[in-house]
């Protein structure tokens, strides 16, 4: 079995220590960091994501695999220029103002990083203006917002509205999620996508990022 296949295999089993050690070995053997990242770590998480979507494995296994992926990334990060790990797009996420529920948003963030995105997590209780400042500063392509309370859902609409006012609505796409949120609500406030779980969120974000890249050539 090749080194990359070994990493891929241990990542799927959630063996963080093995992924970390084997990533180090792969680099010592002359495999480029980018190749390890794309063909072992991200590819491994793609397989894990697919198995999760197909109900072959469940959330605890996905989260163990994610931890293993992060362990591999920790080895690779210093090897990239200015420690900037290549990514397929920058995403800003946060739980909206007034809401402190973190878990769903955290899971989405973990899955997005696993899929190769750079995730800027603003935390919880995030005011609308902070989302806008973050996308401008980070040149992000997508804002992901989470809410678990019906009372805080309108904040999502404010973020979409602020994006419009700033003329950023085509360059920055929005996706929303959380227990009380629905596809209909997303349409009502003009959000670009709605997701009911973390696996689906990754799929939707990929589509949104592709859409932005197609229009602006990957440099919004």
């Amino acid at each position, binding site marked *: 079995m090749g080194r990359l296949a070994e990493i891929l295999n241990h990542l799927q089993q959630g063996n963080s220590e093995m992924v970390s050690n084997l990533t180090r070995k792969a680099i010592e053997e002359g495999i480029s960091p980018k190749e390890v990242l794309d063909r072992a770590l991200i590819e491994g998480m793609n397989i894990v994501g697919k198995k999760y979507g197909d109900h072959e494995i469940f959330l*605890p296994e996905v989260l163990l695999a994610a931890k293993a992926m992060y362990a591999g990334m920790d080895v690779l990060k210093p090897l990239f220029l200015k420690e900037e790990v290549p990514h397929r797009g920058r995403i800003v996420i946060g739980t909206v103002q007034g809401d402190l529920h973190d878990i769903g948003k955290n899971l989405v963030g973990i899955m997005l990083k696993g899929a190769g995105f750079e995730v800027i997590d603003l935390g919880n209780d995030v005011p609308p203006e902070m989302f806008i400042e973050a996308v401008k500063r980070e040149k992000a392509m997508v804002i992901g917002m989470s809410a678990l309370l019906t009372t805080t859902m309108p904040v999502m609409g404010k973020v979409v509205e602020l994006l419009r006012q700033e003329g950023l609505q085509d360059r920055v796409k929005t996706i929303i999620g959380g227990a009380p949120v629905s596809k209909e609500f997303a349409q009502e406030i003009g959000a670009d996508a709605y997701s009911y779980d973390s696996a689906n969120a990754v799929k939707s974000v990929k589509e949104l990022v592709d859409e932005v890249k197609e229009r602006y050539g990957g440099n919004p």
Partner: protein
Amino acid sequence: MREIIEIPLSELKPEREEVLKAQGVPAGREQPERLRHLLEEAMEIFFQSSHPRALISELTIPQFEALYKGEGLNAPRTPLEGIFRKADGLALFAFTLGRGIGERINALFRTNEFALANFVDSIASTAADKAIDLLAHFYLRLLSKRGEANSFTGILGYSPGYCGWHISGQKRLFEFLHPEVIGIELLDSFLMRPLKSISGVLVAGRKEIHQFADSYPFCNQCPTHSCQERIRKLLS
């Protein structure tokens, strides 16, 4: 009656299957050994970091009626408005697992212990739900001692934010109950801090009064319809 109750953690400990179900794992699925160990570790963290406390306070039907109106944002028709008027006893309650557990979950996420963090979170949420049943038992015992309950009496808890009772109902509930004394704070968004806290009203009465069909307009948006399972369990 108004009382602060210390609930032993052992009584809140959820079953493994309940925790796995909360994570979307189907019942009966064989768990890899690593996950079994992780779940045990999560249970230990739950025991180390949780400090459960509850507060319960009785009130009359007219008192609750005034409280239930809240900020005037309830659904036009709700099941609870039909139920509480037939009650033999009403008691507001609040329960918290304390600040420590939430802080521990956040710390685990920060150190990339995602699966462990998520297990602890599911255990804490399941335990908080379980606390309502324990408080209902406590209230039933109290009513029985006073000769105000019999074998036909059933108690269920109802909370703001569910079944048409708008979450802004928390405001008046807090004004009446003052859960601050057990360390629960109400935020402007009507969210409670610590997060692993619950509040609501315990309604005691003939078991049948709790029966309702999940056909209210807001039921379409409910992802669980767990009311029906609770009613079935109470009536069985």
